[in-house]
């Protein structure tokens, strides 16, 4: 039971990541290969503020989100003026840089040794220290994310995002300030990824750079595409399926030296097959061409 609750917490955290990436990738059509950078930033800022500065994890959470959003600004500022391929590269670069910083700035992050003993959340003296109580906390954040992203993608605002995805020149000729929208979307997506990072750090209580490699970006992208581009329920479904499947592989009793690369191979292959055969994913409407 404890194990199932744990899996659900992880599903929730990945749902936030997938939803926030879907806003950027699925709805607005911006290729972001470095979503993990925002996730890692949120986790590290939140962990460091609580561990080093002794601040409340809630402040850490907020700062983690804002710090990730700041990274979002730094990445998109130079790249938005250019073709989308360059944005993809700049985000990939952000993923690498954040990873390198977490690994090499040892005086701050302790590098590969990681940060242990990250305290959990508590409210009015009640600590979220059991798995089920943490699950409730995560569900609350999933719902907040769902609510806000749903607001953004339905209605007039979401219409503009989709128009940018379809044809940004046509969109600008209709009076839409395309770069402003891209910017807002990136910052919002980064903010929620930062929150997810913080939720992860305070749940696992230990973070190290190995949780934030570029493979993590790959996993989140796959969740979005598999579930369906521009589909809210697709992102949640994608997150749940891609968290649960590898857990099942674990029951097959493979040693991790085989299971880990095998899992990544399946992910890579799945991405290629989806791109070739069904770019709209399970629930998506958008075919991405």
């Amino acid at each position: 039971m404890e194990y199932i609750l744990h899996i659900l917490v992880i599903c929730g955290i990945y749902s936030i990541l997938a939803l926030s990436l879907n806003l950027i990738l699925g709805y607005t059509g911006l290729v972001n290969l470095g979503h993990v950078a925002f996730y890692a930033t949120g986790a590290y800022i939140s962990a460091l503020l609580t561990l080093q500065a002794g601040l409340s994890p809630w402040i850490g959470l907020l700062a983690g989100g804002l710090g990730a959003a700041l990274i979002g600004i730094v990445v998109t500022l130079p790249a938005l003026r250019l073709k989308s391929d360059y944005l993809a590269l700049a985000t990939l670069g952000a993923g690498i840089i954040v990873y390198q910083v977490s690994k090499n700035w040892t005086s701050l992050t302790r590098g590969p040794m990681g940060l242990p003993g990250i305290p959990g959340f508590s409210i009015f003296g009640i600590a979220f220290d059991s798995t089920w109580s943490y699950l409730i906390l995560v569900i609350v954040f999933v719902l907040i994310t769902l609510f806000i992203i749903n607001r953004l993608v339905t209605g007039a605002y979401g219409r503009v995002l989709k128009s940018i995805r379809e044809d940004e020149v046509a969109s600008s000729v209709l009076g839409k300030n395309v770069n402003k929208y891209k910017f807002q979307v990136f910052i919002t997506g980064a903010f929620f990824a930062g929150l997810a990072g913080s939720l992860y750090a305070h749940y696992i209580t230990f973070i190290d750079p190995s949780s934030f490699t570029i493979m993590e970006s790959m996993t989140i992208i796959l969740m979005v595409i598999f579930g369906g581009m521009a589909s809210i329920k697709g992102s949640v479904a994608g997150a749940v399926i891609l968290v649960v499947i590898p857990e099942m592989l674990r029951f097959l009793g493979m040693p991790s030296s085989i299971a880990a690369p095998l899992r990544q191979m399946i992910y890579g292959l799945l991405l290629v097959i989806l791109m070739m055969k069904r770019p709209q994913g399970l629930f998506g409407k958008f075919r991405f061409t």
Partner: protein
Amino acid sequence: MIQQFILNGLIAGGIYALVALGFTVIFRTVKFFHLAHGVVYTTGAYIGYTLAIQLKLPIVIAFLFAMLSAAILGILIDRIVYRPLRKKKASNLILLLASFGIFIFVQNLIQLIYGAQILSLRTGPVKEGYEIFSAIITPIQIIILVTSFVLMITLWIFIRKTKLGKAMRAVSDDPMAANIVGINPERIIMISFALGSALAGAAGFLIGMETNLEPTMGFNIILKAIIASIVGGVGSIPGAMLGGLFIGLSENIGIAWLPSAWKDVIVFVILIIFLLIRPQGFLGIKTKKENS
């Protein structure tokens, strides 16, 4: 001391230039960022390991076969994945994501076969180096430097002088027009993948002789190669070589002052500076958004 950094920069730069050149040759015909070029490099290195270390074949033979297998892998990637997507007129975004998928797949396949541990293509103990301009260069490094420059210049001459090279340029400039004058673009794309991938395989092999092999080695190199080609000017052959050398020199001279772990960060800072100030690179034409 600085001479040593410059020399190291030239050696690293030569490798980057080689990969960037291969990337550029492919980019010119398919016009998207072929990320999986990075694992072609890794594959070249590991095939080289199997041939030279496990099967103990002569190093030159192993080198040539590594290039050949890299070329075959490049062609296969294009045939199996890119070509069907091209037929469907898939967008660059789809191609880029598919390329990312291939990258992850092959990299983990290599890890599954060879394990995650660090391997080396070194066949003997490291020989003592020679001293030039108060910098030390080992015989292996001389081989790397010479081979990479010879390969680059050969390719450049091939593209500028031969009929096939001219056809490749024609396809790059205007595929429709090239088709009309009887050049088959698909054939040219295949040749580009073969040549570009062979260069990546060669680079992977060379770096394996100097440093180590790791399944994840292709990731860093493809990023640097792409950045090198942006710095040099996307799609420009001399630009790719210049960019590669520039990146290699900057990161190695940069670590004269900074800890060596920050090499990659230096490179990305260069990328950001270029994207902000000169997105078309040293030799490129404008890469800003096209106007319709």
